[in-house]
């Protein structure tokens, strides 16, 4: 990410090119950008500025064969205090810190706790009110690093039945389910949502459930999603390959 035309732009810089003024305070989702341009960089290694959540996203992608781990060089970026607070991040320090200073994790997400204390009726009312603002911009899917399906099920009239906008609850519930074993809580969905729906909070609550039910946390290159293993833990075909 660097300064360009008075703004901060993502940039792919080739060997020998001038890097320009690097800026790290604006959180572009570089892994998503990497995915789009990956097939256009046929060989050689690509260095990517990665935060901890970006490392986890890369792990999920390499596990599924979308990215060749050996080609990626990680330049660890530690998020600033403001960024950690904005994401309510509990795991903000990359494996190796090359840029920035390691910050303290944020202890809790206020909104998650508030929602957990609500009655189901109140919670439903909250989410209905939020999702009524949805304009189907698809920013959440478009900018999400682990949303990689070419034929997105949310684009099927069978599953998201409503004409026009707002799309009904099925859009958001289906998305939540699909992400439950992949979401790395990078917060890009929430930052890109024009209606400022607190999507990251929903992800965090479901991540907690995932941990409780299966003891699984996405982002580890060595573990397999419980949705791809039998009840005895044997690996099955990746369910995403069904599509």
């Amino acid at each position, binding site marked *: 990410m660097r300064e*360009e*035309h*008075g*703004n*901060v*732009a*993502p*940039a*792919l810089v*080739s060997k020998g090119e001038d890097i320009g003024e690097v800026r790290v305070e*604006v*959180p*572009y989702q570089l892994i998503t*950008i990497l995915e*789009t*341009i990956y097939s*256009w*960089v*046929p060989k050689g290694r690509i260095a990517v500025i990665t935060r901890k959540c970006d490392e986890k996203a890369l792990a999920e992608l390499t596990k599924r064969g979308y990215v060749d781990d050996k080609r990626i060089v990680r330049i660890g970026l530690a998020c600033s205090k403001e960024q950690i607070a904005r994401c309510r991040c509990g795991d903000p320090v990359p494996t190796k810190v090359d840029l920035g200073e390691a910050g303290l994790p944020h202890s809790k997400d206020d909104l998650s706790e508030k929602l957990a204390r609500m009655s189901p009726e109140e919670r439903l009312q909250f989410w209905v*009110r939020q999702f*009524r*603002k949805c*304009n*189907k*911009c*698809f*920013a959440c899917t*478009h*900018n999400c690093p682990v949303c990689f399906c070419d034929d997105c099920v949310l*684009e099927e009239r069978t599953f998201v039945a409503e*004409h*026009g*906008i*707002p799309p009904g609850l099925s859009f958001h519930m289906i998305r939540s389910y699909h992400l439950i074993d992949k979401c790395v809580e990078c917060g890009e969905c929430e*930052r*890109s*949502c*024009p*209606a*400022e729906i607190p999507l990251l909070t929903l992800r965090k609550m479901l991540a907690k459930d995932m941990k409780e039910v299966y003891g699984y946390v996405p982002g580890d290159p060595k573990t397999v999603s419980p949705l791809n293993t039998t009840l005895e833990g044997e690996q099955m075909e990746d369910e995403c390959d069904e599509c």
Partner: protein
Amino acid sequence: MSVKHVLTTCPYCGTGCNFFLQVADGRLVGVVPCKTDEISLGRLCIKGYNAHAFVQHPDRLKQPMIREGGQLKQVTWEKAMDRVVKEITRIRDKYGPDSVVVLASAKCTNEENYLFQKLARAALGTNNVDHCARLCHASTVTGLLYSFGSGAMTNTIPEFDDADCILVTGSNTLEAHPMIGARMLRALDKGAKVIVVDPRETPLSRISHISLHQKPGTDIAWINGMVKVIIDEGLVNEEFVRQRTTAFDELKEAVKDYSPDKVEATTGIPMGKLVEAARIYAKSDKAMLAYAMGITQHSNGTNIVKALANLAMVTGHLGRESTGVNPLRGQCNVQGACDAGGLPNLYPGYQRVDDPEAKAKFERAWGKQLPGKPGLTLTCAIKEAMVGKLKAMIIFGENIMLSDPDLGHVEEAIGELEFLVVSEIFLSETAQKAHVVLPAACYAEKDGTFTSTDRAIRVLRKAVDPPGEARPDWKIACELGRRLGSPGFDFSSPAEVMKEMASVTPQYGGIDFERVDKQVLRWPCPTPDHQGTRILHTQKFTKGLGVFAPVQHAPPMEEPSEEYPFILTTGRNLFHYHTGTMTRRSPKLEREAPEPYVEINSSDAKRLNIVEDERVSVSSVRGSITLKARVTDRIIQGSIFIPFHYAEAAANRLTNAALDPISNIPELKVCAAKVAKA
């Protein structure tokens, strides 16, 4: 292997969001929002995310074409330009320069529009230059020119966030200007009161505080009704009225009969709700008015705009942060096309062509004698063509065969022309009827500037090369100008064109490519060190004192009758853009809304025994179309709604070309229609 992210401006609506086009080896592969852009804040709507999809579509025009033997055949640029110049010169010499009309384009850059109007005025000798603003905000220009002296949005887009009250009317903001709608949502979340006045239930009206549904064509009634409530309940901003306006007594006299119960009888808006809305708007500290087609596209559109201006002036909601009268302009560069003089009666910068001083100034600047008579508006030009008074049209990027009212007559009019040349990116319905078609470059393939609805100059940067032999319109216009023998068309870059435009356009005086490359400047920006103007009319109005206009409600030109009992109103949906030449070729957008439809109220549908998805035919006195019915309560009883994006069921076959006498804007929002099972 080359991968770059090019920062450019969205070609769709007038919000003017910036984003990065991802280019890999000369191919557009995606869109990344720009997180530091002050207008979009790193967010985009679905059209923005798919703004790259149509650019390298196989249907793009790559080669000029000439009609020979009834068919369009590919030819060289040389041959095509020869033909254009030959025909235009012949027609101009035989019938006079006023037999030619140049249509500028709200989709082309400021530099290009400046060149188009210079082409008409300096090279051809006619003031017949107009563009699609005639169809959308022409009444804003005339209305606000009367009330304030300036026809542009008075405040800025980011200010919506901080308003206490937003009164939205005639605008389906979440669908037509999604990122501005998103700002209204932010204001809502912060506690602002949002009032929506619209005959339809729109995504914004459903989450707003007060939503009023009026009968189409009754806007002056409810606006005057609100003004009367404000006067009667002592909510007038006395200081503002006294110091900054004139003609208040005429206004008081004009609104005295618009009591809430009479307004209810005319508009259908319940008395209590009208009064409540008026009180909230008047009592709020920072209240903004936002409006669009629902206000402007009427046979008395200018008067309706003046009425809204009255409402803002009587409450003093002008000239401060998060206040103002804010017309939401539709096209990416309709504001710029107007600013650059693409209007028959105005030079660049809104200087009048019949003002001797202005005329002399431009004659000096361009080194040529200029015509003194104001030219024809687009809507009048169509009528003139039909009676054989107009012989040639040079159209840059406009699809009048789908966007103008009363398509039957448009088709006839085009048929009467001796020569039609169209510069386009796709073979649109209009290009299909042309004698010569010129392939043009689109927004991603050239440099230039757009001006967004809040007067911000936004930059276009070239990301990919145009396909085949397509050329940017500025090059086409320059070559035409040169070949027509006129001086002043020797530009080697858009930056040079802007330099000249800035020298003759006071509001753009301080605009040059280097400055706008790094910062957002809003006009008026008269000098190179001026930082641009965010809010208009802060100390005084452009014309000094604001003028109250004593306007009265007048019914639409065509009211429902026994044979045609429904009010047909037209509009847009989120997924498509105008005539669909770009969005219908973008897979993800087309997939969301692939078919034309008519929205009909469920009780009306029940009465006519029509069910959801049934094919029905909708007709008016002018024509008939067949499409699917969408049975819903989103439209009030007695009215139906059809989006105009679909060529196979063109809503404009039915609409009425009744014009507002002052602005010549057609009454696209109201006509009479009937619905029958197909």
